[in-house]
């Protein structure tokens, strides 16, 4: 009975698909000879294909719902792997070694791709503070990235500021912009907040695009110097390796700081803010402070990433800071698992590296991207690696009760 129902459903879906794709797949107009070619055989292929696909899909869904009843949801095999010190310690060492020898084994091109991916790791971890921890949906994160990039480019152009001076300055300027956007949106949440941040990013981009005297408009700023290495001039290859290690170090620093933040008082305040704003206030948490620090700290990392981006590409223009970029970073956070550091790193590497290595499919990149996101949200809404918080054990011992802290 159920089987027949599924067949019926798949048949309906297949017919619907045939109807939808009819104009593209069947009718072909030859404008040179002014004739219409009817490719009827395509109908059969599409029909069979969509029928098979939808049928498999439904079986898959059924299987998923039946297994869900038995297996406890939440922890993935990856999560369990992370909890096993005997497994993850050697894995960490291998990853570390691989990261160390990577630039000496692979080509210049590969190093550049990896550097870009590492910039996105930083961006993802930064946005993770806002979206993952504090639950502030920010669709305009790229604005802070742009602030960082332009602060290095402009400060260097006008005042000859070097990379190392610009890095903290860019981070600080981005943090100030974070607080600036934070104030007006203090009372907003959810979708309203998303819209305001989206508008904020568009304002920044439009200002950069149109205020020629300030930002050189759409033509952008070129000849931005790469970071210096103790005053020595580096060849492009050496510089790429240098950038790579620089980013590895900065990423490690980011991971360390965000890990500490996550388990600090302010980190707990953010999580409370995300879970229930009213209850968070009733606990005595300063809502204003929690929100503003989340915005400022999130923006700080975008600012640093922006400075590095400008130094890496040596040329920036407003086209690098479109909404698509914000959406990409947000996808990294959602795909990786809100609030999870390891998940965000994996997602950033996957989303940036895969399109590069799948050059063959580059035309379908956004389609695959969208499909992957939809699949993830259906089958793993908590992301690749769900957030694991430190848990506090309450043990009853013989003479007294103590609270032992451990990681679960």
């Amino acid at each position, binding site marked *: 009975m159920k089987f027949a129902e599924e067949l019926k459903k798949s048949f309906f879906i297949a017919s619907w698909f045939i109807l939808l794709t009819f104009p593209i797949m069947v009718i072909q107009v030859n404008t040179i000879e002014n004739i219409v070619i009817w490719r009827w055989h395509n109908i059969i292929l599409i029909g069979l294909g969509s029928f098979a696909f939808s049928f498999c899909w439904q079986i898959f869904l059924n299987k998923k719902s039946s297994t869900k009843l038995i297996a406890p949801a939440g922890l993935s095999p990856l999560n369990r792997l992370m909890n096993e010190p005997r497994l993850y310690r050697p894995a960490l060492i291998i990853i570390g070694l691989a990261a160390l020898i990577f630039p000496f084994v692979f080509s210049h091109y590969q190093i550049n791709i990896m550097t870009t991916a590492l910039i996105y790791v930083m961006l993802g971890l930064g946005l993770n503070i806002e979206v993952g921890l504090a639950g502030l949906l920010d669709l305009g994160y790229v604005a802070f990235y742009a602030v960082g990039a332009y602060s290095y480019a402009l400060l260097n152009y006008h005042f000859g500021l070097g990379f190392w001076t610009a890095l903290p300055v860019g981070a600080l300027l981005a943090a100030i912009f974070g607080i600036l956007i934070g104030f007006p949106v203090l009372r907003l949440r959810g979708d309203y907040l998303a819209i305001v941040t989206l508008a904020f990013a568009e304002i920044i981009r439009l200002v950069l695009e149109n205020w020629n005297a300030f930002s050189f408009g759409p033509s952008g700023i070129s000849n931005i110097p790469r970071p210096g290495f103790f005053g020595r001039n580096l060849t492009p290859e050496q510089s790429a390796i240098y950038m790579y290690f620089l980013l590895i170090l900065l990423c490690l620093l980011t991971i360390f700081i965000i890990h500490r933040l996550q388990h600090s*008082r302010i980190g*707990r*305040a953010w*999580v*409370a803010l995300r*879970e*229930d704003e*009213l*209850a968070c*206030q*009733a*606990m*005595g*948490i*300063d*809502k*204003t402070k929690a929100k503003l620090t989340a915005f400022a700290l999130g923006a700080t990392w975008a600012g640093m990433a922006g400075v590095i981006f400008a130094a890496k590409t040596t040329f920036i223009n407003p086209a690098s800071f479109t909404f698509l970029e914000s959406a990409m970073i947000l996808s990294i956070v959602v795909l990786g698992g809100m609030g999870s550091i390891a998940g965000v790193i994996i997602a950033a590497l996957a989303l940036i590296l895969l399109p590069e290595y799948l050059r063959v499919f580059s035309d379908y990149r956004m389609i695959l991207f969208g499909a992957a996101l939809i699949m993830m949200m259906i089958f793993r809404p908590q992301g690749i690696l769900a957030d694991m*918080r430190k*848990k*506090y054990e*309450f043990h009853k011992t013989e003479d007294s*009760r*103590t*609270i032992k802290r451990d990681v679960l």
Partner: protein
Amino acid sequence: MLKLIDVQTCYGNIRSLKGVSLTVAEGEIVSLIGANGAGKTTTLMSISGIVAASSGQIIFNQQRIERTDPDKIVAAGISQVPEGRRIFPGMSVLENLEMGAFLREDSRKTREDMEYVFDLFPILNKRRHQAGGTLSGGEQQMLAISRALMARPKLLLLDEPSLGLSPLLTNQIFEMIKKINTEQHMTIFLVEQNAYMALKLSHRGYVMENGSIILEGKAAALLTDSNVKKAYLGI
């Protein structure tokens, strides 16, 4: 301990509190009863600072707090159990309790208080690693009260603790409130729709209607008052 003088609170143009005056003395249980939309929750929200009062004075321990931020009010010693419990659904019972002690630095005393609430509600100890959102309504209410106690407040504000609970559980919760009052000498300001239960528990009571206090007095006297009987007790 707590004194409200002619407090008015507005939501936009709608005046929700039209001049509320009341007092709560130390060690008392005072209840505020009234129908839906009378302004009971708004009164609590104005005290805890989450909704700012538009005019009037709120005095807590000789200090005016009507313009103070909610976090400073918690620090001053007023803890609120919000309407509908509002526990953190993704956090475990322990983490919820720890959030209650967010402003406290003394970890040893915090631990003692955690033991106290576990003695009060042993079921919470059993469920300490369970996510708050998976608890039953009664357990969530116990957790919400315990979480507020973890701040070691001087004044505990309770907003409709009987909301959505069975009569049996309501009884149990109210017994615990009484116990907290007698054992810890905790001053409690209780907002309830369940007028009979609230007045039986309290020392004094206020009756609210359309944003104003219309009646006040000893709880025992209110219980026998003919107007209260007719309007709220259904006798």
